[in-house]
């Protein structure tokens, strides 16, 4: 038959060689190249955003770890700080920070004169605007801690005000100061001279990492340490509740649950909870834990409970996956040598699934650590997290902030000096998240068994 067709129909004569591109082929090849280029462009755009985000974070955030300090000797005059002269701490603590302020200001004026820096103000006292308003308290605390120092000259490392700090970091320029009543351009001249004389320097600031939040007018003093403790206590709650509950739920659903309505109901609920917006969990926390159970507002305990409910679906889903990955032969072998069902699960399946479970838990914790929205509703913002919790009960129950909530709080404040702190806080938060994720990856690589 093929012969017949070949005979009756003459082969169509090709007008061109296969090696020549026809117009149509050309168009098709061009569209192929274009399509591939779209794909490359999409990946490139995605990666560009990632890089832009990281560049924004690190370029804006690294200055937060440095702070401008003024190092000057302060003459702790007895007449101002200890009128009775008997170095009694109780009597001395009656002198408030207002009493210390002139002492520090005078020390600054003396130091400037010693260094040969001219003070171009009518009132010499105006140089105190170079200093943070927190320095009086700093000097007072040092004096009260060791009253024997009164009457001597002690070298202090004092915070410069946030405008001066911003000038050294390039955030504040002389033009900005024209309408600023907190600082004048002449102050910057003094600051330049002081930096040259070695009285003022921008150095690493550990207080940003370990210190407490400060009031809105003193960004130079604010740190993220207290809210870090808040986050820590929340994570403890999340870990100790969500791990056992999540593992128990997964074991039940994966190993024991019969196929019935109740099991279906649980499964549907878990998959829905995984998709509920996080802010709804905040509303739940507010209505149930605070309004109904009367737990204290702003407490890390409540934050931990809310985040537990939020993380549970993540942990359950990953735990079930790793339980499923344990081959049935393990269970059969255990049952075959006389173990009960419960024993086969708890003695054999669970230990084998543990690396996977821990990986899932760490990823769930990392998610919870970065979550902000529900914390806003249970009141972990809007106040100054200024006190380190004293003791474990106070850590769980006293009002505190959390790292992401603190960053949000800083971002909402009016002073641009706080933006730098917010970015710096993000660097710390991301370092924690990165560490947790790396631990999870290592756990998975080292301990997870492929069957």
């Amino acid at each position: 038959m093929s012969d017949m067709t070949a005979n009756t129909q003459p082969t169509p004569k090709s007008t061109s060689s296969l090696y020549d591109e026809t117009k149509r082929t050309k168009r098709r090849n061009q569209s192929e190249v274009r399509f591939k280029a779209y794909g490359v462009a999409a990946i490139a755009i995605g990666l560009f955003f990632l890089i832009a985000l990281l560049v924004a974070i690190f370029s804006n955030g690294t200055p937060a770890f440095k702070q401008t300090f003024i190092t000057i000797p302060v003459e702790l005059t007895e007449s101002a700080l200890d009128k009775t002269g008997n170095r009694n701490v109780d009597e001395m603590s009656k002198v408030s920070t207002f009493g210390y302020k002139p002492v520090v200001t005078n020390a600054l004026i003396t130091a400037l004169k010693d260094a040969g820096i001219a003070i171009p103000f009518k009132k010499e006292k105006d140089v105190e605007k170079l200093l943070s308003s927190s320095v009086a308290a700093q000097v007072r605390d040092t004096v009260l801690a060791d009253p024997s120092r009164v009457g001597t000259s002690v070298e202090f490392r004092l915070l410069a005000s946030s405008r001066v700090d911003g000038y050294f970091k390039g955030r504040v320029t002389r033009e900005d100061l024209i309408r600023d009543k907190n600082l004048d351009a002449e102050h910057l001249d003094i600051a330049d001279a002081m930096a040259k004389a070695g009285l003022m320097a921008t150095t690493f600031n550990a207080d940003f990492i370990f210190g407490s939040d400060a009031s809105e007018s003193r960004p130079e003093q604010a740190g993220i340490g207290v809210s870090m403790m808040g986050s820590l206590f929340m994570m403890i709650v999340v870990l100790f509740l969500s791990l056992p509950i999540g593992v128990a739920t997964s074991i039940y659903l994966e190993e024991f649950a019969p196929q019935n309505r109740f099991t279906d109901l649980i499964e549907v609920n878990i998959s829905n909870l995984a998709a509920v917006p996080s802010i709804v969990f905040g509303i739940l926390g507010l209505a149930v834990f605070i309004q109904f159970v009367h737990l204290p507002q702003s407490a890390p305990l409540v934050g931990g409970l809310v985040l537990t409910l939020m993380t549970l679906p993540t942990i359950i889903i990953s735990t079930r996956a790793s339980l499923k990955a344990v081959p049935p032969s393990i269970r059969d072998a255990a049952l075959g040598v006389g173990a009960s069902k419960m024993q086969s699960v708890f003695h054999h399946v669970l230990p084998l699934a543990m690396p996977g479970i821990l990986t899932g838990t760490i990823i769930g914790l990392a998610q919870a650590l970065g979550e902000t929205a529900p914390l806003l509703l249970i009141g972990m913002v809007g106040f100054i997290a200024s006190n380190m919790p004293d003791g474990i009960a106070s850590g769980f129950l006293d009002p505190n902030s959390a790292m992401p909530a603190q960053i949000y709080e800083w971002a909402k404040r009016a002073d641009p000096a706080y933006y730098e702190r917010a970015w710096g806080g993000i660097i710390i938060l991301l370092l924690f998240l990165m560490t947790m994720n790396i631990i999870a990856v290592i756990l998975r690589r080292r301990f997870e068994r492929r069957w």
Partner: protein
Amino acid sequence: MPILWLFVLVLALGLIGFVLGRMRALKDAHGDIRQLHSLPNYYGANVLFATLIPGFAVMVIWLIAQPMVIQSQVTSLIPERAYTDAGSLNLVMSDVRRVAEGLDVAVAEGAMTHEQARDIRSEFTDVRARLGAVGVALGSNVEPYVLQAAQKYRTLSNGGLWLMTVLALGAAVLGFVLSYLRTNKEQRSRNSVERVILVLLIGAASIAILTTLGIVLSLFSNTIEFFKLYPAKDFFFGTTWSPSFGGGSELGIIPLFWGTFYISFIALAVAVPIGLFAAVYLSEYAGPKVRAIAKPLLEVLAGIPTIVYGLFALLTVGPLLVDLFGDGGALGVGWMKGGTAVMTAGLVMGVMLIPFVSSLSDDIINAVPQAMRDGSLGLGATKSETVKQVILPAALPGIVGAILLAASRAIGETMIVVLGAGAAARLSVNPFEAMTTVTAKIVSQLTGDADFSSPEALVAFALGMTLFVITLALNIFALYIVRKYREQYD
């Protein structure tokens, strides 16, 4: 903290029970483990559970029931003239609680004796000043009936705590003794212990149901409360949003909906093309090396907390867009007034959603059988023609599902819009204007507020309810589509 001590005490009792029960079983078998029905630890665990469960059960039930009983007892002491409705009764009750706590503090600090705290009358002494002296600040002078109620509250709750301690310890000891006496070598302790563990597992699994129930109930009851104060019709169809805590607020949800959908639309317009092309490239074109690097890097975008995106929108993208589209900007169009705008939030949210769309679509495209690709390529189609005419149509339901899931993410996203979108509720088509969303308004109506009696605070629950229903519907619909699609190839 007597409750903590009670907890520790019951726990200690249980542990002692564990040791004793184990020893008793072994002794009964004369130290020969083969004569026991179960392993020795199960006998111990049996006594442990028999001690802990009744003890803790009494504690939990008491702690839940006591406040309700006390509430109803104390409410009867408050004269009806002092409150007009349930809301103001709650206010009076919180006053009562605060005074009662203040009296506790005063006793603890030694400023008052127990008798004084029980018997003082506000007719004779200034209670507010005396409590203020120990650091308890009260908003107003203490009315005589509030003080009486507070004193009653104190006696009842103190008495209740003592009764609870006695009952809980009694129950624990009873369980201990009974199960200990019943321990012998024939006892089937493994079976009973395993039954208890199974019940605990079921209990843990029920927490998911309880959470959903908690969400629905807390949203629902407060929403009903809100609709009692504010007509539902005005809420769903009102076109103005101007809450004022002084009263006379207009709480129409339409401007919020408009902002939410506008921002989500822009986010999807960014995320869907980029995510989809990235997924196609990664699954069809990229070699294993490129894939191994690019895929995890894109997924890093999904692991970054939303507060970071919020800050990125507020401080980086917003000012950048103003430089381009603002007054005197690089493009000279002057469309944008401030950094916070629909465009800012939408763009950044789009970036956040890229990995979401790309990894879901990647999975779906990979699930398309290889035979379909081979068939198409064998007929002479180019790779892009195969993708466009064979793979994408086959994967379409799954991709639609992925986009719906991304949309539900976008609608429920909070931090980016709180920081990047602005606070003004507006009905406008200009994407460079500030608008606000449902989630942002939930935050601003509820933050730092503990009094939920005004419609301005309660509206947040109605907003939350709407949000919950919308995202739930989207998710269920998306999962339905994805699941239906999967059945075709498995």
